[in-house]
């Protein structure tokens, strides 16, 4: 059984699709299809989200107020775009910090075993 000790106020661990969505929105707002394409390119073709998975994750992120939706100026396309909120940016930074720390610890163990 796996035991995880959560620190107070620690953010929930993000699933890979959610992390990739936050990463994709970090530099600019995007609409649904642009998100799907960008996530595919960010993950070098490894992750291809279906619309069901994408909008499920977007729905949860909207509920958590990590992202917000707004209407694009190009009204003819009837599209909504999404952008990161301050809380979402903070959440992304925390998750990337956690991954950085894990990578560092893993690399140091590998180096120690090789030495």
């Amino acid at each position, binding site marked *: 059984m796996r035991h995880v000790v959560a620190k107070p106020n620690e953010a929930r661990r993000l699933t890979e699709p959610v992390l990739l969505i936050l990463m994709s929105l970090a530099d600019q707002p995007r*609409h*649904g*299809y642009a998100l*799907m394409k960008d996530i595919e390119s960010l993950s070098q073709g490894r992750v*291809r*989200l*279906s*619309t*069901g*998975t*994408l*909008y*499920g994750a*977007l*729905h949860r992120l909207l509920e958590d107020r990590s992202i917000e939706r707004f209407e694009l100026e190009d009204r003819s*396309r*009837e*599209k*909504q775009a999404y952008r990161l909120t301050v809380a979402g940016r903070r959440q992304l930074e925390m998750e990337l910090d956690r991954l950085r720390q894990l990578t560092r610890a893993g690399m140091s163990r590998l180096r120690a075993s090789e030495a």
Partner: protein
Amino acid sequence: MTRAYAWLLRMYPRGEWALFSAEMLATFKEAAREHRGRGWAVYARFALREILGLFAGAVRAWFAAWREAPALDLTKMRPPGVPRQAYAEALDEVIEAQRSVESNLARMQHAIYRHEFAKARFYSEQDRKARELLRLLRKRHGIAE
């Protein structure tokens, strides 16, 4: 395929998902156009992934809706000192207004599916008015959301 996708979208719970479904359909159409151009096998894989994703998404959405639904809503119980008849009438009014909100939302969704955007804007305005009426009724009768 687009028709099948639009039909499968009905598996999702109503309410806020109604607003998402029009957007999901538009995103699907765009992705389908691109995959169709990349050959039959790529399109078949894409279609399968989309259908499975929709099923999984609908199950997750229903589970989330079920988890959030309160077993017993104490806020809708008759407050002490309010006559039974008066409270029943007030509740009827609020329920009627609630139905009007749901019906406008469904009509708006249907109009978006059919790309009748002028109609959709009309129902969007009706929806705004119905929600405002519902809010006023709740406030007047002291019924929480």
